Protein backbone atom coordinates (compact mmCIF):
# COMPACT_ATOMS: atom_id res chain seq x y z
CA UNK A 1 0.00 0.00 0.00
CA UNK A 2 1.55 3.33 -1.00
CA UNK A 3 2.11 5.52 1.99
CA UNK A 4 0.66 9.01 1.97
CA UNK A 5 3.43 11.28 3.26
CA UNK A 6 2.35 13.13 6.35
CA UNK A 7 2.54 16.84 6.23
CA UNK A 8 4.85 17.34 9.19
CA UNK A 9 7.34 14.61 8.30
CA UNK A 10 10.01 15.11 5.70
CA UNK A 11 9.75 12.20 3.25
CA UNK A 12 12.96 10.57 4.41
CA UNK A 13 11.79 9.93 8.01
CA UNK A 14 12.86 6.36 8.63
CA UNK A 15 11.58 5.90 12.16
CA UNK A 16 8.81 7.85 13.79
CA UNK A 17 7.67 7.30 17.35
CA UNK A 18 4.43 9.10 18.03
CA UNK A 19 2.98 9.57 21.49
CA UNK A 20 4.36 6.28 22.73
CA UNK A 21 3.46 5.25 26.27
CA UNK A 22 4.38 1.96 27.91
CA UNK A 23 3.14 0.77 31.27
CA UNK A 24 3.88 -2.39 33.17
CA UNK A 25 0.91 -2.74 35.46
CA UNK A 26 1.03 0.55 37.33
CA UNK A 27 4.66 1.44 36.53
CA UNK A 28 5.01 4.02 33.77
CA UNK A 29 8.07 3.21 31.68
CA UNK A 30 7.44 5.58 28.78
CA UNK A 31 5.15 8.54 28.87
CA UNK A 32 3.99 10.10 25.60
CA UNK A 33 7.34 9.87 23.84
CA UNK A 34 7.60 11.34 20.36
CA UNK A 35 10.76 11.26 18.29
CA UNK A 36 11.99 10.69 14.78
CA UNK A 37 15.07 9.40 13.06
CA UNK A 38 15.66 10.38 9.45
CA UNK A 39 17.40 8.16 6.95
CA UNK A 40 21.17 8.50 7.15
CA UNK A 41 21.20 10.16 10.55
CA UNK A 42 22.99 9.00 13.67
CA UNK A 43 20.69 9.99 16.51
CA UNK A 44 21.71 9.89 20.14
CA UNK A 45 19.41 9.02 23.02
CA UNK A 46 20.76 9.90 26.44
CA UNK A 47 19.41 10.30 29.93
CA UNK A 48 19.84 9.14 33.50
CA UNK A 49 19.57 5.52 34.64
CA UNK A 50 16.02 4.25 34.59
CA UNK A 51 14.86 6.97 32.21
CA UNK A 52 13.35 4.43 29.82
CA UNK A 53 15.96 4.35 27.06
CA UNK A 54 16.18 0.58 26.93
CA UNK A 55 12.42 0.32 27.11
CA UNK A 56 12.14 2.63 24.10
CA UNK A 57 14.51 0.52 22.03
CA UNK A 58 12.82 -2.70 23.14
CA UNK A 59 9.44 -1.31 22.20
CA UNK A 60 10.67 -0.17 18.80
CA UNK A 61 12.19 -3.60 18.16
CA UNK A 62 8.87 -5.21 19.04
CA UNK A 63 10.04 -6.98 22.18
CA UNK A 64 7.64 -5.25 24.55
CA UNK A 65 4.66 -6.05 22.36
CA UNK A 66 5.89 -9.62 22.06
CA UNK A 67 6.30 -9.94 25.81
CA UNK A 68 2.79 -8.62 26.23
CA UNK A 69 1.35 -11.15 23.80
CA UNK A 70 3.16 -14.01 25.48
CA UNK A 71 2.27 -13.03 29.00
CA UNK A 72 -1.32 -12.15 28.33
CA UNK A 73 -3.46 -13.55 31.10
CA UNK A 74 -0.64 -14.08 33.57
CA UNK A 75 -0.03 -11.98 36.65
CA UNK A 76 2.91 -10.25 34.99
CA UNK A 77 0.96 -9.70 31.81
CA UNK A 78 -0.67 -6.33 32.35
CA UNK A 79 1.42 -4.39 29.86
CA UNK A 80 -0.10 -1.41 28.07
CA UNK A 81 1.36 0.08 24.91
CA UNK A 82 -0.19 3.23 23.46
CA UNK A 83 0.83 5.39 20.54
CA UNK A 84 2.46 4.49 17.26
CA UNK A 85 5.78 3.35 15.94
CA UNK A 86 6.21 3.90 12.21
CA UNK A 87 9.17 2.48 10.33
CA UNK A 88 9.77 3.21 6.66
CA UNK A 89 6.22 4.50 6.39
CA UNK A 90 4.70 1.37 7.92
CA UNK A 91 3.21 0.91 11.38
CA UNK A 92 5.22 -1.68 13.27
CA UNK A 93 3.93 -1.46 16.82
CA UNK A 94 1.79 -4.55 16.40
CA UNK A 95 4.39 -6.66 14.60
CA UNK A 96 6.38 -9.44 16.23
CA UNK A 97 10.12 -8.77 16.53
CA UNK A 98 10.98 -11.11 13.68
CA UNK A 99 8.58 -9.22 11.42
CA UNK A 100 10.28 -5.97 12.35
CA UNK A 101 13.69 -7.51 11.70
CA UNK A 102 12.48 -8.44 8.25
CA UNK A 103 11.77 -4.76 7.55
CA UNK A 104 15.38 -3.89 8.38
CA UNK A 105 15.26 -2.69 11.96
CA UNK A 106 17.68 -4.46 14.26
CA UNK A 107 18.64 -4.10 17.89
CA UNK A 108 22.07 -4.43 19.47
CA UNK A 109 20.81 -5.23 22.95
CA UNK A 110 21.89 -3.96 26.31
CA UNK A 111 24.51 -6.28 27.86
CA UNK A 112 25.34 -7.49 24.29
CA UNK A 113 23.70 -10.90 24.73
CA UNK A 114 25.63 -13.04 22.28
CA UNK A 115 24.35 -16.59 21.84
CA UNK A 116 26.90 -17.75 24.36
CA UNK A 117 27.11 -21.42 23.50
CA UNK A 118 27.34 -20.73 19.78
CA UNK A 119 30.62 -20.04 18.04
CA UNK A 120 31.41 -16.55 16.84
CA UNK A 121 30.78 -17.62 13.26
CA UNK A 122 27.43 -19.18 14.15
CA UNK A 123 26.45 -15.97 15.92
CA UNK A 124 27.17 -14.05 12.75
CA UNK A 125 25.29 -16.64 10.70
CA UNK A 126 22.35 -16.29 13.06
CA UNK A 127 22.39 -12.59 12.22
CA UNK A 128 22.18 -13.49 8.53
CA UNK A 129 19.21 -15.77 9.14
CA UNK A 130 16.93 -13.75 6.89
CA UNK A 131 19.46 -13.37 4.08
CA UNK A 132 18.64 -16.06 1.55
CA UNK A 133 21.45 -15.79 -0.96
CA UNK A 134 24.62 -17.51 0.34
CA UNK A 135 26.74 -15.11 -1.73
CA UNK A 136 25.23 -12.17 0.07
CA UNK A 137 25.95 -13.85 3.38
CA UNK A 138 29.60 -14.17 2.40
CA UNK A 139 29.67 -10.54 1.34
CA UNK A 140 28.09 -9.39 4.60
CA UNK A 141 30.57 -11.55 6.49
CA UNK A 142 33.46 -9.90 4.67
CA UNK A 143 32.08 -6.46 5.52
CA UNK A 144 31.83 -7.37 9.19
CA UNK A 145 35.31 -8.90 9.20
CA UNK A 146 36.61 -5.77 7.52
CA UNK A 147 35.18 -3.71 10.34
CA UNK A 148 36.12 -6.10 13.17
CA UNK A 149 39.09 -8.24 12.05
CA UNK A 150 39.23 -9.88 15.49
CA UNK A 151 35.98 -11.71 14.76
CA UNK A 152 37.59 -13.53 11.86
CA UNK A 153 40.38 -14.73 14.13
CA UNK A 154 37.93 -15.88 16.78
CA UNK A 155 35.51 -17.54 14.34
CA UNK A 156 35.48 -20.95 16.02
CA UNK A 157 35.54 -19.76 19.61
CA UNK A 158 32.42 -19.95 21.75
CA UNK A 159 31.12 -16.41 21.98
CA UNK A 160 30.53 -16.71 25.72
CA UNK A 161 34.29 -16.92 26.20
CA UNK A 162 35.03 -13.65 24.35
CA UNK A 163 36.15 -10.57 26.24
CA UNK A 164 33.62 -7.83 26.86
CA UNK A 165 34.92 -5.67 24.03
CA UNK A 166 34.96 -8.60 21.61
CA UNK A 167 31.42 -9.51 22.63
CA UNK A 168 30.31 -5.96 21.88
CA UNK A 169 31.93 -6.13 18.46
CA UNK A 170 30.24 -9.46 17.88
CA UNK A 171 26.87 -8.06 18.90
CA UNK A 172 27.27 -5.19 16.46
CA UNK A 173 28.60 -7.51 13.77
CA UNK A 174 25.71 -9.89 14.26
CA UNK A 175 23.27 -7.03 13.85
CA UNK A 176 25.06 -5.84 10.71
CA UNK A 177 24.69 -9.33 9.23
CA UNK A 178 20.94 -8.73 9.02
CA UNK A 179 21.79 -5.93 6.54
CA UNK A 180 19.74 -3.38 8.47
CA UNK A 181 18.39 -0.01 7.48
CA UNK A 182 18.20 1.09 11.10
CA UNK A 183 20.60 -0.05 13.78
CA UNK A 184 19.45 0.53 17.37
CA UNK A 185 22.41 0.22 19.72
CA UNK A 186 21.90 0.08 23.48
CA UNK A 187 24.84 1.18 25.63
CA UNK A 188 27.72 -0.27 23.62
CA UNK A 189 30.43 1.12 25.86
CA UNK A 190 29.22 -0.05 29.26
CA UNK A 191 31.84 -2.05 31.11
CA UNK A 192 34.61 -1.44 28.59
CA UNK A 193 37.97 0.20 29.19
CA UNK A 194 38.29 3.79 27.91
CA UNK A 195 40.46 2.69 25.00
CA UNK A 196 38.10 -0.06 23.81
CA UNK A 197 35.19 2.32 24.35
CA UNK A 198 36.65 4.86 21.95
CA UNK A 199 37.44 2.10 19.49
CA UNK A 200 33.87 0.75 19.53
CA UNK A 201 32.38 4.21 19.18
CA UNK A 202 34.71 4.94 16.30
CA UNK A 203 33.49 1.81 14.56
CA UNK A 204 29.92 2.92 15.07
CA UNK A 205 30.84 6.19 13.44
CA UNK A 206 32.27 4.25 10.49
CA UNK A 207 29.06 2.24 10.23
CA UNK A 208 27.08 5.46 10.16
CA UNK A 209 29.28 6.72 7.33
CA UNK A 210 28.36 3.69 5.20
CA UNK A 211 24.82 5.00 5.09
CA UNK A 212 23.22 2.91 7.81
CA UNK A 213 20.91 4.91 10.05
CA UNK A 214 21.71 4.61 13.75
CA UNK A 215 19.81 5.23 16.97
CA UNK A 216 22.38 5.16 19.73
CA UNK A 217 21.75 4.92 23.47
CA UNK A 218 24.89 5.80 25.39
CA UNK A 219 25.84 6.68 28.95
CA UNK A 220 29.06 8.37 27.92
CA UNK A 221 27.52 11.59 26.61
CA UNK A 222 30.72 13.26 25.44
CA UNK A 223 31.69 10.22 23.38
CA UNK A 224 28.19 9.84 21.99
CA UNK A 225 27.73 13.48 21.09
CA UNK A 226 30.95 13.38 19.10
CA UNK A 227 29.33 11.16 16.50
CA UNK A 228 25.63 11.94 16.60
CA UNK A 229 23.90 14.43 14.37
CA UNK A 230 20.95 14.98 16.63
CA UNK A 231 20.01 13.86 20.15
CA UNK A 232 17.10 13.35 22.47
CA UNK A 233 17.31 13.53 26.23
CA UNK A 234 14.98 11.17 28.01
CA UNK A 235 14.23 11.56 31.70
CA UNK A 236 11.55 10.04 33.88
CA UNK A 237 9.92 8.33 30.91
CA UNK A 238 9.60 11.56 28.91
CA UNK A 239 11.54 13.37 26.23
CA UNK A 240 12.82 16.52 27.92
CA UNK A 241 15.00 17.97 25.19
CA UNK A 242 15.97 17.55 21.58
CA UNK A 243 18.73 19.09 19.51
CA UNK A 244 22.18 18.84 17.97
CA UNK A 245 25.06 18.01 20.23
CA UNK A 246 26.24 21.63 20.21
CA UNK A 247 22.81 23.00 21.04
CA UNK A 248 22.33 20.68 23.96
CA UNK A 249 25.83 21.18 25.28
CA UNK A 250 25.36 24.92 25.05
CA UNK A 251 22.34 24.82 27.34
CA UNK A 252 23.70 25.27 30.85
CA UNK A 253 20.55 23.92 32.53
CA UNK A 254 20.51 20.72 30.49
CA UNK A 255 24.20 20.22 30.93
CA UNK A 256 23.96 20.41 34.67
CA UNK A 257 20.88 18.33 35.01
CA UNK A 258 21.35 15.59 32.47
CA UNK A 259 24.72 15.80 30.79
CA UNK A 260 26.99 17.09 33.52
CA UNK A 261 28.46 14.02 35.15
CA UNK A 262 28.78 12.20 31.85
CA UNK A 263 31.91 10.38 30.92
CA UNK A 264 32.45 8.36 34.05
CA UNK A 265 30.97 4.89 34.32
Amino acid sequence: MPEVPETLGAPEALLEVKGLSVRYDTAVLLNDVTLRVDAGETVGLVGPNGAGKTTLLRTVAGLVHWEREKKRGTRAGNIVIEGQVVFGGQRIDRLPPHGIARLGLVLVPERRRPFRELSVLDNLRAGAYLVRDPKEVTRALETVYGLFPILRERGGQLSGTLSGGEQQMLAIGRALMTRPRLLCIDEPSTGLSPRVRREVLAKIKDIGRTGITILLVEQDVSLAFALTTRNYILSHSRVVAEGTSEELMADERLRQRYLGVAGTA
Partner: protein
Amino acid sequence: MVRYLNWLWREFKGEILVLPGRSILFFGAVALLALPLVFRHPYALRVLTMASIFAIFAASWDLISGVVGQLSLGHAIFFGTAAYTSALLNLNAGLPPVVTIPLGALAAVVAGLAVGIPCLRLKGQYLSLATLAFPIILAGLVMVFSSVTGGELGVSGLTRLAPTRLKEYYVAVVAAIVLILAVWKITDSKVGIIFHAIREDEVAARASGINTPLYKVLAFCLSGLFAGLAGGLYAHYMRIAGPSTLSVLTSFQPIIWVIFGGIATIYGAVVGVFVLFPLVEVLRVAPELRMLLYAASIVLVLRFMPEGLAPWVIDRLERKCPRCKEHNAFTRRACRVCGTALRVPQEKGVPSGG
Protein backbone atom coordinates in the same frame (compact mmCIF):
# COMPACT_ATOMS: atom_id res chain seq x y z
CA MET B 1 -18.87 -15.71 79.22
CA VAL B 2 -21.40 -13.74 77.25
CA ARG B 3 -18.80 -11.14 76.57
CA TYR B 4 -16.44 -13.80 75.36
CA LEU B 5 -19.08 -15.19 73.01
CA ASN B 6 -19.76 -11.70 71.81
CA TRP B 7 -16.10 -11.17 71.08
CA LEU B 8 -15.95 -14.51 69.30
CA TRP B 9 -18.92 -13.57 67.13
CA ARG B 10 -17.41 -10.22 66.24
CA GLU B 11 -14.10 -11.82 65.34
CA PHE B 12 -15.96 -14.40 63.33
CA LYS B 13 -17.95 -11.76 61.49
CA GLY B 14 -14.94 -9.54 60.93
CA GLU B 15 -12.46 -12.20 59.89
CA ILE B 16 -14.46 -14.89 58.16
CA LEU B 17 -17.88 -13.73 57.06
CA VAL B 18 -16.55 -10.58 55.39
CA LEU B 19 -14.88 -12.54 52.64
CA PRO B 20 -16.78 -15.02 50.48
CA GLY B 21 -13.66 -17.14 50.00
CA ARG B 22 -13.10 -17.58 53.72
CA SER B 23 -16.80 -18.19 54.33
CA ILE B 24 -16.84 -20.99 51.79
CA LEU B 25 -13.85 -22.68 53.41
CA PHE B 26 -15.28 -22.23 56.91
CA PHE B 27 -18.68 -23.63 56.06
CA GLY B 28 -17.03 -26.41 54.09
CA ALA B 29 -15.13 -27.44 57.22
CA VAL B 30 -18.29 -27.19 59.34
CA ALA B 31 -20.16 -29.28 56.80
CA LEU B 32 -17.45 -31.94 56.92
CA LEU B 33 -17.74 -32.10 60.69
CA ALA B 34 -21.52 -32.17 60.69
CA LEU B 35 -22.06 -34.50 57.77
CA PRO B 36 -22.12 -37.79 59.72
CA LEU B 37 -25.04 -36.48 61.77
CA VAL B 38 -27.27 -36.78 58.75
CA PHE B 39 -25.51 -39.07 56.36
CA ARG B 40 -23.36 -42.08 57.12
CA HIS B 41 -22.99 -43.89 53.85
CA PRO B 42 -19.74 -45.85 54.44
CA TYR B 43 -18.51 -45.25 50.93
CA ALA B 44 -19.01 -41.50 51.11
CA LEU B 45 -17.28 -41.40 54.48
CA ARG B 46 -14.39 -43.35 53.02
CA VAL B 47 -13.99 -40.95 50.11
CA LEU B 48 -14.06 -37.93 52.40
CA THR B 49 -11.64 -39.55 54.86
CA MET B 50 -9.17 -40.15 52.05
CA ALA B 51 -9.72 -36.66 50.67
CA SER B 52 -8.95 -35.18 54.09
CA ILE B 53 -5.69 -37.12 54.33
CA PHE B 54 -4.70 -36.16 50.80
CA ALA B 55 -5.57 -32.52 51.47
CA ILE B 56 -2.82 -32.50 54.09
CA PHE B 57 -0.46 -34.05 51.56
CA ALA B 58 -1.42 -31.49 48.92
CA ALA B 59 -1.02 -28.57 51.32
CA SER B 60 2.45 -29.80 52.23
CA TRP B 61 3.39 -29.86 48.56
CA ASP B 62 2.03 -26.37 48.08
CA LEU B 63 4.15 -25.18 51.00
CA ILE B 64 7.48 -26.16 49.44
CA SER B 65 6.59 -25.88 45.75
CA GLY B 66 4.08 -23.09 45.64
CA VAL B 67 5.01 -20.85 48.53
CA VAL B 68 8.78 -21.34 48.59
CA GLY B 69 8.96 -22.02 44.85
CA GLN B 70 11.13 -25.14 45.14
CA LEU B 71 9.01 -27.16 42.75
CA SER B 72 9.21 -30.75 43.95
CA LEU B 73 8.45 -33.58 41.56
CA GLY B 74 9.30 -36.19 44.18
CA HIS B 75 6.98 -35.53 47.07
CA ALA B 76 6.25 -39.25 47.42
CA ILE B 77 9.57 -39.53 49.24
CA PHE B 78 7.99 -37.94 52.34
CA PHE B 79 4.68 -39.72 52.04
CA GLY B 80 6.29 -43.11 51.46
CA THR B 81 9.02 -42.76 54.08
CA ALA B 82 6.44 -41.94 56.71
CA ALA B 83 4.06 -44.66 55.57
CA TYR B 84 6.74 -47.34 55.73
CA THR B 85 8.16 -46.07 59.02
CA SER B 86 4.75 -46.00 60.68
CA ALA B 87 3.89 -49.40 59.30
CA LEU B 88 7.13 -51.07 60.38
CA LEU B 89 7.03 -49.52 63.84
CA ASN B 90 3.45 -50.58 64.26
CA LEU B 91 4.02 -54.15 63.15
CA ASN B 92 7.45 -54.83 64.58
CA ALA B 93 7.41 -52.76 67.74
CA GLY B 94 3.69 -52.93 68.34
CA LEU B 95 3.36 -49.17 68.79
CA PRO B 96 -0.11 -47.61 68.42
CA PRO B 97 -0.94 -45.12 65.63
CA VAL B 98 -0.70 -42.11 67.97
CA VAL B 99 2.97 -42.93 68.34
CA THR B 100 3.83 -44.36 64.93
CA ILE B 101 2.34 -41.50 62.91
CA PRO B 102 4.41 -38.77 64.59
CA LEU B 103 7.49 -40.98 64.40
CA GLY B 104 6.80 -41.59 60.74
CA ALA B 105 6.52 -37.85 60.26
CA LEU B 106 9.84 -37.46 62.05
CA ALA B 107 11.38 -39.86 59.57
CA ALA B 108 9.91 -37.72 56.79
CA VAL B 109 11.56 -34.67 58.34
CA VAL B 110 14.86 -36.50 58.17
CA ALA B 111 14.05 -37.26 54.55
CA GLY B 112 13.42 -33.54 54.16
CA LEU B 113 16.97 -32.91 55.32
CA ALA B 114 18.29 -35.59 53.01
CA VAL B 115 16.54 -34.03 50.04
CA GLY B 116 16.81 -30.39 51.01
CA ILE B 117 20.52 -30.19 51.73
CA PRO B 118 21.79 -31.66 48.44
CA CYS B 119 19.19 -29.62 46.57
CA LEU B 120 20.51 -26.36 47.99
CA ARG B 121 22.96 -26.16 45.14
CA LEU B 122 20.30 -26.72 42.51
CA LYS B 123 18.04 -24.18 40.91
CA GLY B 124 14.78 -24.13 39.05
CA GLN B 125 14.09 -27.02 36.77
CA TYR B 126 17.22 -28.87 37.82
CA LEU B 127 15.94 -28.96 41.36
CA SER B 128 12.53 -30.23 40.25
CA LEU B 129 13.97 -33.01 38.19
CA ALA B 130 16.46 -33.99 40.91
CA THR B 131 13.73 -34.30 43.52
CA LEU B 132 11.94 -36.71 41.21
CA ALA B 133 14.80 -39.14 41.77
CA PHE B 134 14.61 -39.57 45.53
CA PRO B 135 11.42 -41.64 45.89
CA ILE B 136 12.45 -43.82 42.96
CA ILE B 137 15.79 -44.55 44.56
CA LEU B 138 14.06 -45.41 47.83
CA ALA B 139 11.57 -47.60 45.98
CA GLY B 140 14.48 -49.51 44.46
CA LEU B 141 15.91 -50.12 47.94
CA VAL B 142 12.50 -51.20 49.22
CA MET B 143 12.40 -53.85 46.51
CA VAL B 144 15.90 -55.10 47.27
CA PHE B 145 15.31 -55.40 51.01
CA SER B 146 12.05 -57.19 50.51
CA SER B 147 12.50 -59.37 53.59
CA VAL B 148 11.91 -56.28 55.73
CA THR B 149 9.67 -54.25 53.47
CA GLY B 150 7.59 -56.97 51.89
CA GLY B 151 8.79 -56.01 48.41
CA GLU B 152 6.04 -55.65 45.86
CA LEU B 153 3.32 -56.54 48.39
CA GLY B 154 4.33 -54.01 51.02
CA VAL B 155 3.72 -54.14 54.76
CA SER B 156 0.15 -54.97 55.64
CA GLY B 157 -2.02 -55.72 58.63
CA LEU B 158 -1.54 -52.46 60.47
CA THR B 159 -3.62 -51.35 63.43
CA ARG B 160 -6.63 -49.34 62.36
CA LEU B 161 -6.47 -45.60 62.64
CA ALA B 162 -9.45 -45.76 65.04
CA PRO B 163 -11.80 -48.52 66.11
CA THR B 164 -14.79 -47.49 64.00
CA ARG B 165 -15.29 -46.00 60.57
CA LEU B 166 -16.91 -42.92 62.03
CA LYS B 167 -14.03 -42.36 64.42
CA GLU B 168 -11.55 -42.79 61.61
CA TYR B 169 -13.48 -40.20 59.66
CA TYR B 170 -13.28 -37.72 62.51
CA VAL B 171 -9.60 -38.38 63.11
CA ALA B 172 -8.84 -37.62 59.46
CA VAL B 173 -11.10 -34.57 59.18
CA VAL B 174 -9.94 -32.99 62.42
CA ALA B 175 -6.31 -33.73 61.57
CA ALA B 176 -6.80 -32.14 58.17
CA ILE B 177 -8.41 -29.00 59.58
CA VAL B 178 -5.79 -28.55 62.29
CA LEU B 179 -2.78 -29.34 60.13
CA ILE B 180 -3.87 -27.31 57.13
CA LEU B 181 -4.60 -24.34 59.36
CA ALA B 182 -1.11 -24.83 60.75
CA VAL B 183 0.39 -24.79 57.25
CA TRP B 184 -1.63 -21.71 56.42
CA LYS B 185 -0.50 -20.00 59.64
CA ILE B 186 3.11 -20.76 58.72
CA THR B 187 2.74 -19.16 55.33
CA ASP B 188 1.12 -16.15 56.98
CA SER B 189 3.84 -15.75 59.61
CA LYS B 190 7.20 -13.99 59.51
CA VAL B 191 8.82 -17.17 58.24
CA GLY B 192 6.12 -17.35 55.60
CA ILE B 193 7.00 -13.87 54.37
CA ILE B 194 10.60 -15.00 53.99
CA PHE B 195 9.37 -18.09 52.11
CA HIS B 196 7.43 -15.90 49.69
CA ALA B 197 10.45 -13.65 49.29
CA ILE B 198 12.63 -16.62 48.37
CA ARG B 199 10.18 -17.61 45.68
CA GLU B 200 9.89 -14.12 44.27
CA ASP B 201 13.61 -13.40 44.12
CA GLU B 202 16.07 -15.55 45.97
CA VAL B 203 19.07 -13.40 45.11
CA ALA B 204 17.38 -10.31 46.48
CA ALA B 205 16.31 -12.19 49.60
CA ARG B 206 19.88 -13.26 50.23
CA ALA B 207 21.15 -9.77 49.49
CA SER B 208 18.88 -8.39 52.19
CA GLY B 209 20.58 -10.60 54.74
CA ILE B 210 18.27 -13.62 54.84
CA ASN B 211 20.01 -16.96 55.29
CA THR B 212 18.16 -18.49 52.37
CA PRO B 213 19.77 -21.96 52.49
CA LEU B 214 18.66 -22.32 56.09
CA TYR B 215 15.11 -21.32 55.25
CA LYS B 216 14.98 -23.60 52.25
CA VAL B 217 16.05 -26.60 54.32
CA LEU B 218 13.53 -25.55 56.96
CA ALA B 219 10.85 -25.46 54.29
CA PHE B 220 11.79 -28.93 53.09
CA CYS B 221 11.60 -30.24 56.65
CA LEU B 222 8.25 -28.56 57.36
CA SER B 223 6.84 -29.82 54.09
CA GLY B 224 8.22 -33.26 54.91
CA LEU B 225 6.61 -33.11 58.34
CA PHE B 226 3.11 -32.48 57.01
CA ALA B 227 3.47 -34.87 54.08
CA GLY B 228 4.76 -37.44 56.58
CA LEU B 229 1.75 -37.00 58.85
CA ALA B 230 -0.44 -37.57 55.81
CA GLY B 231 1.58 -40.65 54.88
CA GLY B 232 1.25 -42.13 58.37
CA LEU B 233 -2.49 -41.46 58.50
CA TYR B 234 -2.81 -43.05 55.08
CA ALA B 235 -0.88 -46.17 56.06
CA HIS B 236 -2.99 -46.74 59.14
CA TYR B 237 -6.21 -45.98 57.36
CA MET B 238 -5.43 -48.33 54.48
CA ARG B 239 -3.68 -50.70 56.93
CA ILE B 240 -0.91 -51.17 54.39
CA ALA B 241 2.25 -49.40 53.23
CA GLY B 242 3.34 -50.54 49.79
CA PRO B 243 5.68 -49.38 47.03
CA SER B 244 2.84 -47.44 45.42
CA THR B 245 3.31 -44.82 48.19
CA LEU B 246 6.70 -44.11 46.60
CA SER B 247 5.65 -44.21 42.97
CA VAL B 248 5.97 -41.44 40.44
CA LEU B 249 2.20 -41.16 40.29
CA THR B 250 2.07 -40.53 44.04
CA SER B 251 4.50 -37.68 43.45
CA PHE B 252 2.36 -36.35 40.61
CA GLN B 253 -0.94 -36.47 42.52
CA PRO B 254 -0.38 -33.43 44.75
CA ILE B 255 0.97 -31.51 41.77
CA ILE B 256 -2.25 -32.13 39.91
CA TRP B 257 -4.47 -31.27 42.88
CA VAL B 258 -2.63 -28.12 43.84
CA ILE B 259 -2.17 -26.63 40.40
CA PHE B 260 -5.76 -27.44 39.58
CA GLY B 261 -6.92 -25.78 42.80
CA GLY B 262 -4.53 -22.84 42.59
CA ILE B 263 -0.86 -22.89 43.50
CA ALA B 264 0.82 -20.99 46.35
CA THR B 265 -2.41 -20.37 48.19
CA ILE B 266 -2.78 -23.46 50.47
CA TYR B 267 -6.57 -23.17 50.23
CA GLY B 268 -6.21 -23.98 46.53
CA ALA B 269 -4.64 -27.29 47.55
CA VAL B 270 -7.66 -28.12 49.69
CA VAL B 271 -10.09 -27.10 46.98
CA GLY B 272 -8.18 -29.14 44.40
CA VAL B 273 -8.33 -32.31 46.49
CA PHE B 274 -11.95 -31.95 47.51
CA VAL B 275 -12.99 -31.38 43.91
CA LEU B 276 -10.78 -33.85 42.11
CA PHE B 277 -10.65 -36.76 44.54
CA PRO B 278 -14.43 -37.21 44.74
CA LEU B 279 -14.58 -36.61 40.99
CA VAL B 280 -12.48 -39.72 40.39
CA GLU B 281 -14.91 -41.64 42.55
CA VAL B 282 -17.97 -40.27 40.79
CA LEU B 283 -16.39 -41.22 37.50
CA ARG B 284 -16.45 -44.86 38.62
CA VAL B 285 -19.81 -44.99 36.86
CA ALA B 286 -17.76 -45.29 33.66
CA PRO B 287 -14.86 -47.46 34.82
CA GLU B 288 -13.00 -47.67 31.51
CA LEU B 289 -13.31 -43.98 30.81
CA ARG B 290 -12.59 -42.91 34.36
CA MET B 291 -8.98 -41.75 34.14
CA LEU B 292 -9.54 -40.45 30.65
CA LEU B 293 -12.40 -38.22 31.75
CA TYR B 294 -10.47 -37.21 34.85
CA ALA B 295 -7.41 -36.09 32.92
CA ALA B 296 -9.50 -34.51 30.20
CA SER B 297 -11.50 -32.45 32.69
CA ILE B 298 -8.29 -31.20 34.30
CA VAL B 299 -6.94 -30.19 30.92
CA LEU B 300 -10.15 -28.42 30.00
CA VAL B 301 -10.51 -26.52 33.26
CA LEU B 302 -6.91 -25.36 33.19
CA ARG B 303 -7.19 -24.31 29.58
CA PHE B 304 -9.66 -21.67 30.69
CA MET B 305 -8.52 -21.05 34.27
CA PRO B 306 -4.76 -21.17 33.93
CA GLU B 307 -4.17 -19.91 37.47
CA GLY B 308 -6.32 -22.68 38.92
CA LEU B 309 -9.89 -23.06 40.12
CA ALA B 310 -9.84 -21.30 43.50
CA PRO B 311 -8.11 -18.10 42.33
CA TRP B 312 -10.53 -17.96 39.42
CA VAL B 313 -13.51 -18.13 41.74
CA ILE B 314 -11.97 -15.71 44.22
CA ASP B 315 -11.30 -13.24 41.42
CA ARG B 316 -15.01 -13.22 40.79
CA LEU B 317 -16.15 -13.08 44.39
CA GLU B 318 -13.61 -10.71 45.81
CA ARG B 319 -11.95 -7.51 44.72
CA LYS B 320 -8.57 -6.27 45.74
CA CYS B 321 -8.44 -2.73 47.06
CA PRO B 322 -6.26 -0.68 44.70
CA ARG B 323 -4.79 1.24 47.61
CA CYS B 324 -4.18 -1.11 50.52
CA LYS B 325 -4.30 -4.42 48.58
CA GLU B 326 -6.79 -5.90 51.08
CA HIS B 327 -9.43 -8.22 49.70
CA ASN B 328 -13.08 -7.23 49.75
CA ALA B 329 -16.31 -9.02 48.95
CA PHE B 330 -17.58 -8.23 45.46
CA THR B 331 -20.70 -6.64 46.96
CA ARG B 332 -18.85 -3.86 48.71
CA ARG B 333 -18.56 -0.40 47.25
CA ALA B 334 -15.75 0.81 49.44
CA CYS B 335 -12.75 -0.95 50.92
CA ARG B 336 -13.47 -2.34 54.39
CA VAL B 337 -10.04 -1.30 55.63
CA CYS B 338 -9.20 2.04 54.06
CA GLY B 339 -12.50 3.13 52.57
CA THR B 340 -11.25 3.63 49.03
CA ALA B 341 -13.99 3.39 46.43
CA LEU B 342 -13.97 0.01 44.71
CA ARG B 343 -16.47 0.37 41.92
CA VAL B 344 -13.96 1.13 39.19
CA PRO B 345 -14.27 -1.82 36.86
CA GLN B 346 -10.94 -2.83 35.27
CA GLU B 347 -9.75 0.70 34.37
CA LYS B 348 -6.85 1.11 36.70
CA GLY B 349 -6.11 4.75 37.35
CA VAL B 350 -2.67 5.37 35.92
CA PRO B 351 -0.67 7.93 37.77
CA SER B 352 0.84 10.31 35.29
CA GLY B 353 4.57 10.21 35.91
CA GLY B 354 6.59 13.39 35.94
